[in-house]
């Protein structure tokens, strides 16, 4: 017997059984809901997000403020570029990095950021990047003043931005720079955590689960010294949510 088998056999016996009992379906946990239910839920989450998008955006904007995001509403990509450029300038940024989110390619960021002398880089390594490449990329992430991303989803219930790290979206981009700017479009907003995890479960059952997922709800904070809430401990001190109006 391997250690694992022995360990688990011990649990079986502590539960007063001689053999492992596979649980029968009950209502307690969603594990008994099959792929079809997960698919239906995920589909509903998406259609809900688009059909109720204006309600959900309003709810998200409110919740995001409560969570500590600085929320900005902009009418078009040009205004977005101007706003983000201004944020970077105020932060006296020298290096700004961005993800490869689609929404960012519609915004003329390059001009807005280079206009005051900063550089705009994209974090995108190839699959075959060497460990030296990765070390360099990490160094530049720790050195950047602002990180700009899109959002994969937003959650109105909690004022949360959801990011699935992947090629073109470093895990550190929304964490290491002292300022994070996330750009959201109306169709991105889900009602609640239930919808998010329904979609996540559907991804899993379809074999498409991402390597990781981050739910971000405001700036990094701590209350470990005398219970005083201080923003900006290990992650960003300031986070901006830019809500782009429907074009």
């Amino acid at each position: 017997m391997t250690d694992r088998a022995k360990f688990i056999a011990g649990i079986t016996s502590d539960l007063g059984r001689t053999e492992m009992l596979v649980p029968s379906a009950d209502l307690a946990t969603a594990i008994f809901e099959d792929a079809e239910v997960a698919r239906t839920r995920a589909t509903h989450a998406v259609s809900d997000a688009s059909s109720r998008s204006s309600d959900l955006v309003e709810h998200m904007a409110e919740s995001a403020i409560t969570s500590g995001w600085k929320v900005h509403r902009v009418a078009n990509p040009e205004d977005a570029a101007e706003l983000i450029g201004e944020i970077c300038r105020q932060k006296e940024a020298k290096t700004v990095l961005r993800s490869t989110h689609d929404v960012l390619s519609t915004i003329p960021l390059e001009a807005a950021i280079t206009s005051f002398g900063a550089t705009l880089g994209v974090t995108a390594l190839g699959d075959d990047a060497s460990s030296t490449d990765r070390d360099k990329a990490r160094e530049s992430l720790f050195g950047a003043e602002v990180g700009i991303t899109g959002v994969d989803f937003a959650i109105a219930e909690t004022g949360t931005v959801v990011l699935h790290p992947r090629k073109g979206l470093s895990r550190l981009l929304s964490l290491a720079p002292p300022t994070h700017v996330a750009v959201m479009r109306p169709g991105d907003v889900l009602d609640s955590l239930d919808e998010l995890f329904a979609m996540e479960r559907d991804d899993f059952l379809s074999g498409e689960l991402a390597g990781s997922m981050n739910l971000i709800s405001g700036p990094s904070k701590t209350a470990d010294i005398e219970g005083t809430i201080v923003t900006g401990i290990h992650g960003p001190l300031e986070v901006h949510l830019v809500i782009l109006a429907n074009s």
Partner: protein
Amino acid sequence: MKPQTTHFRFKASQTLVNDQIQQSLEHVYTGFHEGRLTAAANTDNWEELRTKGKAIKDHTIAHLDHYLDLLADSVEKNGGHVFFADDAEEARQHILGLAKANDVKTVIKSKSMVSEEMALADALIDAGIEAVETDLGEYIIQLAGETPYHLIAPAVHKSRKDVAALLSDDFKDGDPVPDAVQLTRMARSKLRAVFERADMSVTGVNFAVAESGSIALVTNEGNGRMSTSVPRIHVAVMGMEKIVPSIQDLSTMLRILIRSATGQRISTYVTMVNGPRKPDEEDGPEEFHLVIMNNGRDRLLAETRMRESLNCIRCGACLNACPVYRKVGGHAYGWVYPGPIGSIVSPVLTGLKDASNLPNASSLCGACHSACPVKINIPRMLLELRWRTAEGKVDARERTSSIKERAVWKAWRFGMMGRRRFDLGARVARIMIRPLSRGGWIKKAPPPISGWTVTRDFPLISPKSLKSLLSVRTKHTKRDLD
């Protein structure tokens, strides 16, 4: 961590007279407890969520063998490694082995109570490896050479001045004390440098998802995210009970955990990790290890009356609600888990004989049970453990009651088994203590109630019982009617 549960009374008495700590403990009520009440009031279906959370945990623990098996398969399918550890020593040795085999120089630790059971940071440091706690509270505690005071606020007992002295070498008594923002910035810059050079991380696990092999980490500071982004190797450690079956269960569990812990709707970060970095990802650990530890939890599982304690999701709500915790503080409990939950799990995990004070250190007020997001009936288990220490019926070696105490209760029983004895006993007791009384109250009572009168007057037994009062009244009424 070596249990020090025998020192409960002594450590409690020290804290009771420490004004600074008493003041710090106020925050546990005004910050966390009241925050939870507000969060619950603002959540429409709060009671429904608690019921669901309890159902999920009850189900999971009742099929723990199955879900552990499934979890291990899922983690391996994701390309991670699973290690089952029977005890803290096995877990510690495994992690030390991983660090040595990979020539690790710097380990960053995220807050994990399970790693406290292993005393992991000290073990790594003893092996010549830099091991740094990165949760600010844990970092402060590590610098102070102490153990966590609270499940989610490890340094809740430290003042700003304490923290200043720990963070800065030049801080002297009498210097102006920096504010919380300045102190936090100091810690940020010190820990940033550590993050950048870390080659291994150790984190806890808030929930492990059996079906997908995912782990969920809940943090506000972002150290959990650093731990899952920067180092080459990520080791996650969990108690074997920390499972939920399905990804979808996370929405319920996260809601009740976070709202019960800090009163936030959600923490700043929730990170879900599904194994090591995928090939096309920008960054993330090359290796993912999950260490699943028993360390005595099998005894909680096997004792059906204690099993419910494995539902605990370590939110700390019972500590914040507990009037005893808020007076005696976290260190009195003498092991990793303080407060009401500690009083039921520490005795079983570390030995009831030494920890016999813990289940007795409760007024049975039930605030812990009401606060618990998964409705663990803590008072019921405290009573169970009291029974074992009083009478040693489960295991004779666990009996810690004194002969005198046993004699008192035997006499009590004799007195309660008949009304005449009951009345006679009360009359005799009254005659004995009456000379000590003035105006119906006693200022200094003899044992076994001498402890009461140190701070409180004790009532004198009534000259007449209710029975005799009522019988006189009935006679009068009858006579009046005649």
